[in-house]
C-alpha cells in the first residue's frame, strides 16, 4: 500500500489543531472544488484534499492514521502488526490477515468506518443498509449520443468481509445510454452501485455524460446547428443542396433571396429527447465568395453591379438621420 501524507496534502503540520486543519481544508476546497474551480486537475486535487480531511477531522481516524507511522509520499508501507486490532472494532482480524497491496489508504479508512458501522450500534448493526451510490464519467462521441449506445464500465468496488477486512473487487457494468443525451447530462443506472447489506437495496450508479464535439454539428439543448455555406448566386437564385444530418443526407431546398445569417429549419432532425420528441436541425446560412476570380468573371460581376440598383447599405442613411 502506498503512503499518502495527509498533513502535507492539507499543508499543515502534524501537530496542527482541529481548527487549523478545518481552515486549511476550507481554503483548498474553495480552490479545487469542481463546482468552483476551472483548473485542469481540480477534481483529482479535490478528491485528495477531501480524503485527507475526512481522516484528519475525526479524532479517532486521525489517531489511527498517526499510528501508521511517517513515510515519504507514495512510499510502499504496511500498517504495524497490531494496528487493525487497536483501531478496528471487534479486533479487526480482517486487517491482520489481509494483503494490503490491492487497496489504498482511503480504502483502509473506509474499511475501518465500515467495520465500526457493523460492530457498533447494537440493533443498528443488523438493520438493512442500502449500498453506496457510485459515480462514473462516460465519454462518448457525438454519433453515439445521437443514436444511443451501449457502454461497458470497468469500475472498482470496495467489499467488506464479515471479519472487518476490506478489499477492492472489479465491478463490471454494461449499460445502454439512451439516444439524445447531451454534454453534462446525468443518468442513473438503478441498482448498479454498491451491494446493500442485511437485505438493504443495492446503490445506484450515476453517470456523468461527456460528449465530444463534432466538426459539423453544434448542440444547443435538443437542437442542432450546422453551417450552410452558399455561393452568392445560390443565395440569390435559390438552389438545392445535399445537407448532411446525423441521420443521413437530406436534400434541402434553399429559397431564392436567402440572406446570410438566416436559419433554415429541418423539423425533427435534432436530438431525440424521449417523450418530448426530437429537436430541430438548423442550417445557418453563410455566403461565401470565391477568393480567386478570373477576368471574365470580374467582367460579369461588373455588369451585375452596373445593372443592379440594389443598395446593401440603404438603411445607413435612414438610421443615421434618426
Amino acid at each position: 500500500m502506498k503512503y499518502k501524507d495527509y498533513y502535507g496534502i492539507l499543508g499543515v503540520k502534524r501537530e496542527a489543531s482541529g481548527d487549523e486543519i478545518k481552515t486549511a481544508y476550507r481554503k483548498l476546497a474553495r480552490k479545487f472544488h469542481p463546482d468552483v474551480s476551472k483548473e485542469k486537475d481540480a477534481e483529482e486535487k479535490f478528491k485528495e484534499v477531501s480524503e485527507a480531511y475526512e481522516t484528519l477531522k475525526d479524532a479517532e481516524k486521525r489517531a489511527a492514521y498517526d499510528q501508521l507511522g511517517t513515510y515519504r509520499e507514495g512510499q510502499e508501507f504496511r500498517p504495524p502488526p497490531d494496528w487493525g486490532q487497536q483501531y478496528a472494532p471487534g479486533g479487526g482480524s480482517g486487517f491482520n490477515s489481509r494483503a494490503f497491496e490491492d487497496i489504498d489508504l482511503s480504502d483502509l479508512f473506509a474499511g475501518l468506518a465500515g467495520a465500526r458501522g457493523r460492530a457498533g450500534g447494537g440493533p443498528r448493526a443488523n438493520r438493512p443498509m442500502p449500498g453506496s451510490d457510485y459515480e462514473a464519467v462516460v465519454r462518448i462521441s457525438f454519433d453515439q449520443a445521437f443514436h444511443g449506445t451501449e457502454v461497458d464500465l470497468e469500475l472498482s468496488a470496495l467489499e467488506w468481509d464479515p471479519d472487518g477486512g476490506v478489499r477492492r473487487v472489479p465491478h463490471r457494468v454494461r449499460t445502454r445510454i439512451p439516444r439524445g443525451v447531451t454534454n453534462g447530462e446525468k443518468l442513473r443506472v438503478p441498482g448498479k452501485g454498491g451491494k446493500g447489506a442485511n437485505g438493504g437495496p443495492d446503490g445506484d450508479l450515476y453517470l456523468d455524460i461527456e460528449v465530444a464535439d463534432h466538426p459539423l454539428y453544434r448542440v444547443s439543448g435538443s437542437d442542432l446547428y450546422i453551417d450552410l455555406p452558399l455561393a452568392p448566386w445560390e443565395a440569390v437564385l435559390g438552389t438545392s443542396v445535399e445537407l448532411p444530418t446525423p441521420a443521413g443526407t437530406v436534400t434541402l431546398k434553399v429559397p431564392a433571396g436567402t440572406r446570410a445569417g438566416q436559419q433554415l429549419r429541418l423539423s425533427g432532425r435534432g436530438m431525440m429527447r424521449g417523450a418530448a420528441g426530437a429537436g430541430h436541425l438548423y442550417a445557418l446560412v453563410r455566403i461565401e465568395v470565391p477568393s480567386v476570380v478570373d477576368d471574365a468573371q470580374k467582367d460579369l460581376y461588373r455588369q451585375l453591379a452596373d445593372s443592379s440598383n440594389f443598395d446593401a447599405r440603404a438603411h445607413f442613411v435612414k438610421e443615421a438621420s434618426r
Partner: protein
Amino acid sequence: MITPIQDAVRFDTVTEVTWTQLVTASGLTEDEVTELVQYGALVPRDPSAPTWTFESRWLVVARHASRLRHDFELDPHAVSVVLSFAERIESLEAELRALRAQLG
C-alpha cells in the same frame, strides 16, 4: 461470463421519485430535505400533499445539495443560496452555448 445490459435512465420532469427515494439517494437527512423545500431549493409536485413526491430531475439537485453540504460544510440555508447561484450559472451557460451554436 456475459454481463446483462441495463438501461441508464434520464432525470426528467415525467418520472416521479418518492420522498424516501429522494432522501435515500441524496444522502441528505429528512430534516435537511424539509428545510431545503422550505427555502424553495427543492420543489415537490404538490407541496400541500400529505406525502411529498418530486419530479426525478430534483434528485440531481438534491445530490448536488448533499455534496455542497458535505464538501463546504454548509448549513441548508447556505446550500439553498449556493444552489440558486449554481442554477443561475447553469442557465447562463446554456444561453451561452445556444448563442455559440447559433453563431458558429
